């Protein structure tokens, strides 16, 4: 049977309870093509059942809900099955499985989580703020994974006096720090009035980027490996080519 759910943790856990005994279960939150002849179920989140599943799974592995959160943030289309197989293994073994690194389900989950965490780490470096006329900082991002709110603690710790907005332009939402509180809000499009010096600082940064390079040692492939082209769009030093 194919179980459709909306990608939320509650719906996943509800679907997990239904699909667990099913030998031939496929979980999906994306628009996967229906296979002819296969039965389908549309699972809606049932908070009470989800909570029960959560409690039970946490008894088996007290950190597993963190793993689930990370897996469901993944932008990879296989994430639903990766998460399902991983939790199925926890349920059958009855204990934490994350160190069983020769198990397929664990390898897949570990890699999926690592990619999400790695992207968070990358954005700690690659994110670029612009300063608005009001002094608030604005950073548009377009990450592979759904992580914009997870970027907040890092920047809040180092820039406590600056309100900032991290805008996931792909998912049309923003993580906001108003100088005191943090919240997530839908955000389609942002008009930001920049501070008068913004362009001058960006130009200095571009000049720096150009000057610090050693042209006789060009290694473009390596550069692109460390800093993939899809991240360049919002980086002043890269966006004009």
């Amino acid at each position, binding site marked *: 049977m194919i179980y459709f759910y909306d990608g939320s943790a509650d719906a996943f856990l509800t679907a997990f309870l239904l699909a667990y005994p099913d030998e031939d279960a496929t979980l999906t939150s994306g628009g996967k093509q229906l296979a002819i002849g296969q039965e389908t179920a549309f699972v809606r989140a049932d908070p009470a059942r989800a909570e029960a599943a959560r409690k039970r799974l946490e008894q088996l592995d007290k950190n597993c809900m963190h793993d689930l959160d990370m897996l469901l943030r993944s932008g990879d289309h296989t994430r639903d099955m990766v998460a399902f197989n991983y939790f199925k293994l926890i349920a059958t073994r009855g204990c934490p499985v994350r160190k*069983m690194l020769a198990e*397929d389900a664990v390898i897949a989950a570990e890699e999926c989580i690592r990619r999400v965490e790695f992207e968070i780490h990358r954005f700690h470096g690659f994110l670029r703020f612009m300063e608005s006329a009001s002094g608030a900082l604005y950073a548009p991002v377009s990450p592979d994974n759904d992580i914009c709110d997870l970027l907040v603690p890092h920047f809040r710790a180092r820039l406590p006096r600056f309100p900032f907005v991290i805008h996931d332009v792909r998912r049309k939402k923003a993580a906001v720090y108003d100088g005191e509180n943090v919240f997530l809000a839908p955000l389609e499009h942002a008009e930001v009035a920049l501070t008068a010096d913004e362009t001058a600082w960006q130009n200095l940064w571009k000049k720096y980027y150009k000057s610090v390079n050693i042209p006789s040692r060009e290694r473009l492939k390596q550069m692109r*490996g460390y800093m993939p082209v899809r991240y360049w769009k919002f980086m002043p030093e890269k966006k004009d080519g």
Partner: protein
Amino acid sequence: MISEEKLKILTESAKYDVSCSSSGSGRKNGGGMGNGYFSGCCHSFTPDGRCISLLKILLSNDCVFNCKYCMSRSDCDVPRATATPEEICELVVDFYKRNYIEGLFLSSAVHRSPDYAMEQLLLTVKKLRTEYGFYGYIHLKGIPHADERIVHEAALYADRMSYNIELPTEKSLKLLAPQKSRESVLLPMKQLQRERDLFRAEKRKGRFLPAGQTTQLIVGASPERDGQILRLAQGLYRGAGLKRVYFSSYVPVVHDALLPDRPAGELREHRLYQADWLLRFYGFSAEEIVENDGDLPLDLDPKCAWALRNMQFFPVEVNSAPAETLLRVPGIGTRSAQKILDARKYTRLGFDALKKMRVVLKRARHFITANGKFYGSGDETAVRGLLAAGEGQPVQLSLFENEAARSALTGEL
């Protein structure tokens, strides 16, 4: 705001210093701007494949010294510039706020005199910490021959300091950097080490060089062999408590009869970094890696070369070999070793399991058995050929700060 021209001059003269690491400091935000990111962080990568983590800049490139290999030397005809401490502070906070950088790597030519130059550096970092409320990373390069009191005070504001040894022997230093002496570099290093130990022993409040000290050696400008260089590095790690020794393969920027006209091979620099990793993370000693008057082989990485000289240790069984032994297998790095140690608690590992776990077996298979089975070639010459062939373009291990090591390339040797 500093002018673009000045920024260009002061950056271009600083860029050959290879260190750019921002790791090792957990400095907390104390109300102003910034903090330390313990594992370091890359903010951008330049077309030469290097990471930008810190704003790497000179306060001045106007030098009274005359080191032959340097384009800031006094008798070189280049545009000169000197920034004010305010210009640097502003640049740092505005770049930091926009998340362009992790902090500052500040150094200076010997402007007017060693004491004057060092004082200006001190003034800048002190201002940055106290007036601008900056808590981000600061790496300060010390000026040889400067007064030890200035050095001491500067260290109170920095996360890391470095004195570059540059040339591996006193003789080469005399020849190529006549105003510097070995002492003028080693004494402040020892002073800072002493003060840091004392600071820690007395559990004093605050921080004193939390990220320690580093140094840099230029490779290929003078005749020293890899064996000598690695022994020096080992001595600095063990004796002087250095966090990192950087190797910078010589790039001719000025012509001089005493200097080679060609750049030292990048492959040599790469091999030195690989050997340096073996010293720091894999439990090797310099003596095991290369003889005193020898060079590292260029066709093989130093771990493979060691393994081929010591075939009596191999093959080792991945299901039972202790961690130190696994780390000596060519191709098995710290991450793969850890994976193996974890996974084998639950199941016996065969070759298929290792493959699934993405342990790279291309080189390793000649040196291990998995569940008693061997899949390598038992013939040493054949192995040698297989290992040397197909090693791609050298990746720059010099960039393998923790920050870059997080990426796919883990420096698995």
